[in-house]
């Protein structure tokens, strides 16, 4: 599953399309880890084209957020998650720890 990463001055934007479940979550993890390994911890996850999110995908976001927020060095924020995805994040207990934005512009501007 193709994951695009775009580096901006103040943050990185990760975009993935389609379904995120156990079969594709590892692709997302690789993309997130690549950014963190470079010492960059301010990340926007653009979910505008994500149709489906299971707990496997939530796990990747949780692990990424833990690393981003460690020592207050950064944050993982979510842009354009639809209601079903927000509900899944809420059921898994992660929504509480994520800033959610309706669009990518607002999300990037938050950094």
């Amino acid at each position, binding site marked *: 599953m193709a994951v695009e990463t775009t580096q901006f001055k103040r943050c990185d934007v990760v975009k993935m399309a389609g379904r995120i479940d*156990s079969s594709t979550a590892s692709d997302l993890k690789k993309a997130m880890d690549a950014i963190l390994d470079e010492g960059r911890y301010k990340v926007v996850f653009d979910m505008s084209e994500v149709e489906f999110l299971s*707990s496997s995908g939530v796990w990747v976001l949780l692990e990424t*957020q833990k690393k981003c927020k460690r020592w207050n060095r950064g944050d993982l924020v979510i842009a354009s998650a639809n209601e079903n995805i927000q509900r899944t994040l809420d059921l*898994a207990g992660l929504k*509480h*720890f994520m800033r959610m934005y309706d669009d990518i512009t607002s999300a990037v501007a938050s950094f």
Partner: protein
Amino acid sequence: MPTVRVPGRYSSLDAICEFVRESARAAGLGEQQVYEVDLATNEGASNIIDHAYGGEGEGVVECTCEIGPDGLTIILRDWGEPFDPAAVDEPDFNVPLEELSLRGAGLRIIRNCMDEVNYSPNAKGGNQLRMRKNT
């Protein structure tokens, strides 16, 4: 009753979920309900691979869909390690981020998405997960 049997691999999830979505629509469920059924099945099948079989490539996953006048019943079967849902605690969300664990999240999602959820031993060994979504 229509049944699919797939290898216990993450790459099989698309086939099971597509089968369930088609069955859900045939049962007259709306698109929101179709999503919920899709998600519950994905979680249930992933749990089979991860926990009943301890990983990919160790067994098969069987999915049966019963379309009735009032909704859809989905039965997931495996032949792996017995599972006791009572042994899985409800997740504790009242913790700092560093301590948040997703153990039990799949089960919580399944119970939230479906109207009835029932685990029982599979007659031939393993487990049976029976889930129902009403129209």
